[in-house]
């Protein structure tokens, strides 16, 4: 793994038809950094996140993950392979969990190692059991997602992403679909990831408490541009930009 930023984004533009959602983003994330991205809905924050693992293809710009460089272009076989490699280095956690309903929690977590990484089943199982234990769900290994609460599902989703041993974890509003009393258990796991594993994390969220405690840096996105950037101690107490102030006033 090369030294230097885990993620390097230069001049990222994304348009959906006539609507320009990202208007030129530059961003570098160092190893071990936790970056929280926040902003109004429609500001482009989810799109930015999804451009990192190429679930959205940028209209222009460069995305480099772990030294692998991607630019928009033809979907040739070699490019598809590069995209896959990038995705294997990014672990993604979705707002709607997106667990595989026909598999148990354990099988969900094992799926990546077995099918994508090609590991042996026994090795994968051991890894999966350990990960489920780390997120506090060892006893739910043989349950299907339909029998799990929202918070439990999201923790399984985190374990599933971790099973790929990624260099960076991407969180797309991980607690927005949860009932309030279940949010805490998920945030606790995310905090542990940062503090105990020093995992590099890029988190799109409204949970400012989490940001204050865990984030190294916060980015405020407004209409497709980074309006303000800085450590949570400053951003949350003394936002410089008027737009940041307005938004935070409404949220906090």
């Amino acid at each position: 793994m090369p030294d230097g930023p885990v993620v390097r984004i230069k001049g990222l533009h994304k348009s959906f038809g006539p609507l320009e959602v990202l208007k030129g983003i530059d961003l570098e994330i160092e190893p071990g950094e936790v970056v929280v991205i926040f902003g109004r809905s429609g500001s482009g924050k989810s799109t930015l996140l999804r451009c990192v693992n190429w679930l959205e293809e940028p209209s222009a710009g460069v995305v480099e993950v772990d030294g692998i460089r991607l630019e928009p272009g033809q979907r040739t076989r070699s490019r598809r392979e590069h995209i896959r490699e990038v995705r294997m280095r990014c672990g993604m956690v979705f707002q709607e969990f997106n667990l595989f309903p026909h598999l148990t929690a354990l099988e969900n977590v094992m799926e990546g190692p077995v099918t994508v990484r090609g590991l042996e089943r026994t090795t994968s199982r051991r890894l999966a059991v350990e990960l489920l234990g780390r997120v506090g769900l060892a006893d739910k290994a043989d349950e299907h997602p339909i029998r799990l609460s929202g918070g439990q599902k999201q923790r399984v989703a985190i374990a599933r992403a971790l099973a790929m041993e990624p260099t960076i974890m991407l969180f797309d509003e991980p607690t927005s679909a949860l009932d309030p009393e279940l949010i805490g258990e998920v945030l606790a796991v995310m905090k542990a990831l940062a503090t105990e594993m020093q995992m590099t994390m890029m988190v799109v969220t409204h949970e400012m408490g989490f940001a204050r405690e865990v984030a190294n840096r916060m980015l405020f996105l407004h209409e497709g541009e980074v309006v303000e950037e800085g450590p949570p101690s400053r951003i949350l107490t003394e936002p410089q930009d008027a737009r940041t102030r307005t938004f935070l006033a409404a949220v906090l």
Partner: protein
Amino acid sequence: MEVEKQIGGAGEIRPPGVPDEDLSRWQRAEVASLRVPFRVKLALVWLGVITVLGIMFVLVRFDLGWMAEHARFIFLGIPFTLLISVAAIILAVILAVLGSLARLSRNPIAFGVSGFYVSFFRGTPLIVQMFLIYAGLAQIGGNLRTMGYAWGELLILDSLLAGILALGLNYGAYMTEIFRAGIQSVAHGQAEAAQAIGMTYGQMMRRVILPQAVRVIIPPTGNEFIAMLKDSALVSFLGTVVSQMELFRRAQLVGIADFRPFEALILAAGMYWALTTVFTFFQQRLERRLSRGYVRAGSFQLGGGAAGHAG
């Protein structure tokens, strides 16, 4: 003393204690009927329908003796009906898997060919397709052979094979749409999650999308099979030989041999009805079993098999 007003009837005021005989006949019947359980009423209705059918039967004056004598021979066509249907449904499923993936593909060849296939085989009658494959393909094959291409021979299919091929192609076209809808019904997020952990298209389909789509696809596929049991009768129009005769062909030939076509057809109809009833029963069991574990007990669920099949 309070005088209670009776609801219903003429709305007239009656002193209490007046016997029920004064209630209108209809009202009395309604009240009594409420006490009879639904099951009993249902059984009575069935009895009524069967009685009416029985009377019709007697009036037509079918030769019941003849029917009893020849029922067994006609019945022995059922294994062939099943064989045709099973072979054809397998072909149809294979075509539907390929076809549905092609309909969802960005590849112009796959998309174009599958579009043509679906349009043609859903847009022409099954019996026409059968004759085209039996006689038309053979004509091509014969001409090819005359031109010197010996492999043209392969296009000259016997009746059973031609029939199975036509059934498979026809049902495959309808089921392509069923399968496509099934695949698309799998939430988009599933594909994203699969891609996010780095799966290839093939892995995603095999491990995530198709297993979930199968659950949606099985009930309408079961319905298609039941429809195919009936359409298998059309194979007889290609002139199947003794060793291959399914239910309808047997009834047709036996009936004509003894100048009793209707008796034979009634027997055949009864047997088809029994066949489809049996399979429908198993189909419903299967549907219930499939939704276990996916649907919380007691929650509302729609019946399966939404896709219709013409003819």
